[in-house]
């Protein structure tokens, strides 16, 4: 009988324990923590954090190697240079370390530079919270020609939810819809990179193209400039060079022909005399241009 009562009590207890340990879905969201260790005083440390979705993040500043080891320090937080109200805290020394932590709820409007500043020792740690930035931007525009096609590409380290391409017209941007214009545009998305192929280029296709990596929190954008030229543009220097070549070749041939009649005027008997003179000239190792005419008499076609 006693064991049966014990069993019921045990069951009830276990039931109770189960309900207590089951976490309710609304409580305790996942908190990411980021910590930075700063050694010594008069330090400025910058840490970049890529934020992909809205989250709660705990930023920690660990200070070590502070000279004189004061028993406590005061630290406060700033966002984008402006102090956050009621963020000033007194940090006690624990095991030669000073730890300052603060939890932030980050939404799209909350992205920015968060710094923990310790007044007495002029130490600052800055956390840069932003969406991943698309690097390797070309500062020169991509050039292409009418009727040709061009490939514009964007790449990131992290994989966004999706990529979108926009064309910027002055201040507004219009989404590029591949299904609406299948002949003109092709978009290729492969994880963390995307390529936009613009076909049948015309002069109006010149301008700024914006690739946008859509994240939960905010899209990350980068722009590429496209310049469409007509074929006449490179043709001008090409024709200039070809004309120069034709002129030079004509001049050289004309000059040779002008010197040639002098060859025919010399009778055959004088040939040896001329070649002797020439060999004497070459013996003297002279390379003045004025000797050209004497030598050219002997140069035959």
């Amino acid at each position, binding site marked *: 009988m006693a064991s049966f009562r014990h069993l019921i009590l045990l069951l009830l207890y276990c039931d109770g324990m189960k309900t207590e340990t089951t976490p309710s879905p609304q409580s305790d969201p996942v908190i990411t923590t980021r910590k930075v260790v700063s050694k010594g005083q008069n330090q400025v440390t910058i840490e970049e954090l890529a934020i992909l979705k809205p989250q709660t993040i705990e930023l920690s500043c660990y200070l070590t190697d502070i000279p004189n080891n004061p028993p406590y320090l005061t630290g406060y937080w700033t966002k984008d240079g402006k102090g956050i109200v009621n963020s000033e805290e007194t940090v006690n020394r624990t095991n030669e370390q000073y730890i300052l932590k603060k939890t932030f709820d980050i939404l799209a409007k909350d992205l920015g530079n968060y710094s923990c500043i310790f007044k007495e020792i002029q130490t600052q740690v800055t956390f840069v919270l932003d969406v991943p930035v698309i690097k390797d931007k070309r500062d020169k525009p991509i*050039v292409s020609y009418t009727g040709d096609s061009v*490939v514009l590409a964007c790449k990131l380290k992290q994989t966004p939810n999706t990529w979108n391409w926009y064309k910027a017209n002055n201040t507004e941007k219009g989404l590029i819809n591949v299904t609406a214009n299948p002949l003109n545009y092709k978009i290729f998305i492969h994880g963390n990179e995307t390529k936009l192929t613009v076909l049948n280029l015309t002069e109006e296709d010149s301008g700024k193209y914006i690739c946008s990596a859509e994240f939960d929190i905010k899209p990350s954008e980068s722009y590429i400039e496209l310049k469409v030229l007509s074929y006449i543009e490179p043709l001008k220097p*090409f024709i200039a060079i070809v004309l120069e070549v034709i002129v030079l070749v004509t001049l*050289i041939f004309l000059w040779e022909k002008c010197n040639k009649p002098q060859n025919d005027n010399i009778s055959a008997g004088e040939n040896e005399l001329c070649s*002797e003179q020439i*060999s004497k000239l070459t013996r003297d*190792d*002279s390379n003045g241009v004025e000797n050209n005419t004497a030598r050219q008499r002997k140069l*035959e076609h």
Partner: protein
Amino acid sequence: MAQEKKKGGVLPPDGGWGWMIVAGCFVVTVCTRAVTRCISIFFVEFQMHFARDYSGTAWIHSLVDCTTMLCAPLGSLIGNRLSCRVAVILGGFLSSIGLVLSSFATSLEYLYLTLGVLTGLGFALCYTPAIAMVGLYFCERKALAYGIAMSGSGIGTFILAPVVQLLIEHYSWRGALLILGGFVSNLCVCGALIRPIILKEEEACPLPVDSECEYGVKPPMVNGVPSGKAVGDKLEIDAKQRCLRSMQEYNFLLIPDFLVLAGSFLLLASGCSLPFVYLVPYALDVGVSHQHAAFLMSILGVIDIIGNITFGWLTDRRCLKKYRNICYMFAVGMEGLCCLFIPLLRTFALLVPFSVLYGYFDGAYVALIPVVTSDVVGTTYLSSALGVVYFLHAVPYLVSPPIGGWLVDTTGTYTATFFLSGFALISSSLLLFSVAVIRRCQRNQKNSLRKDPKWVSCEDKQVDYYTSKKKDLMIIIPATS
């Protein structure tokens, strides 16, 4: 007219219009070798546009290099049959058409054809005849003339690389290829500059052969190798004589000296391209930064130019002229020695002297290749011989970088590759050296009575060459008195 031709040959002017020929050859080297090297700047653009990877685009460069070298004998053949001038103008025309056509490319395979084959063929038609002509116009200052002419590849790369980059930025690769095609058409101007010349030696003493050897090469039956012959005369020549002429054009292939030289060139070409390809990856591997590694290559390029010109000038000095072959062997051997030391050089500060030395001797031997070849075969066959020499360079150039790459992959370090390169270069030099020593011993045995105190075997030819000039002079003067 025919009588005029027989007596109208001249001695190499060693100046005057010869310098215009050197300038023309310089521009030819710029337009062919430098443009070939600058094609690799286009690869990134091709990869983006045609969505292919590096190996697909790297084929273009290999095709151009391969076609240029493999078709070098064709270039010298056309130079001999028609005229060097016609060959260079035709080559300029072909290569500029190739580049212009490739600016309209729609696929990578199209580029292989226009850029790889057509342009490479055009370059091949220009390269050998232009170099051969410099040899015809110079004798006393041959090495200096060649040094200046060959420095075009280094100087051209130095100047063209940023210019091509600028063109791509302003006009994209299509426009850049079009304008490059226009630039390459300047080869036609060089062709116009190349005035044909008939040298006296062709009739009097066509081939300075080694007098000790039993064989000799008979002068061609028709009036010298017609490097400047008018096209109209060929109508009189029938097929049999033409066939005979082509056999005689390549008679120099049977000279043992040339065979030894050819063997040493094969070894040389196997070894010399590897350091250029693998220096930067090796530097990055041992921890040198990207910018420093690129700087190493720039040093190599600039010192190459200096080596070209100064070594050419040096070997033209009278005291060194007789020892030209030894200078060539020395340059090649030192290059090989430098390569052997690379595994010990593991910092940027140590690799800089390597770049300087290797660059200098690389420039040195490049300037001397045509000189050494002309010393062995004489000016008559220079064009055809150069064609064969550059043909021999083609296959090792193509084959040795992949073999070097395979060695790197299997052994995991670059040591084996550089050792291969070093040993190939040193054995090339040793081959020439040992043959020269054997010749000298044979000659000393045969002519113990004759006074031949100096190094006889290689310079003997040059002594013959110079005495033949004096003999010609003697023939001319009595005739006019």
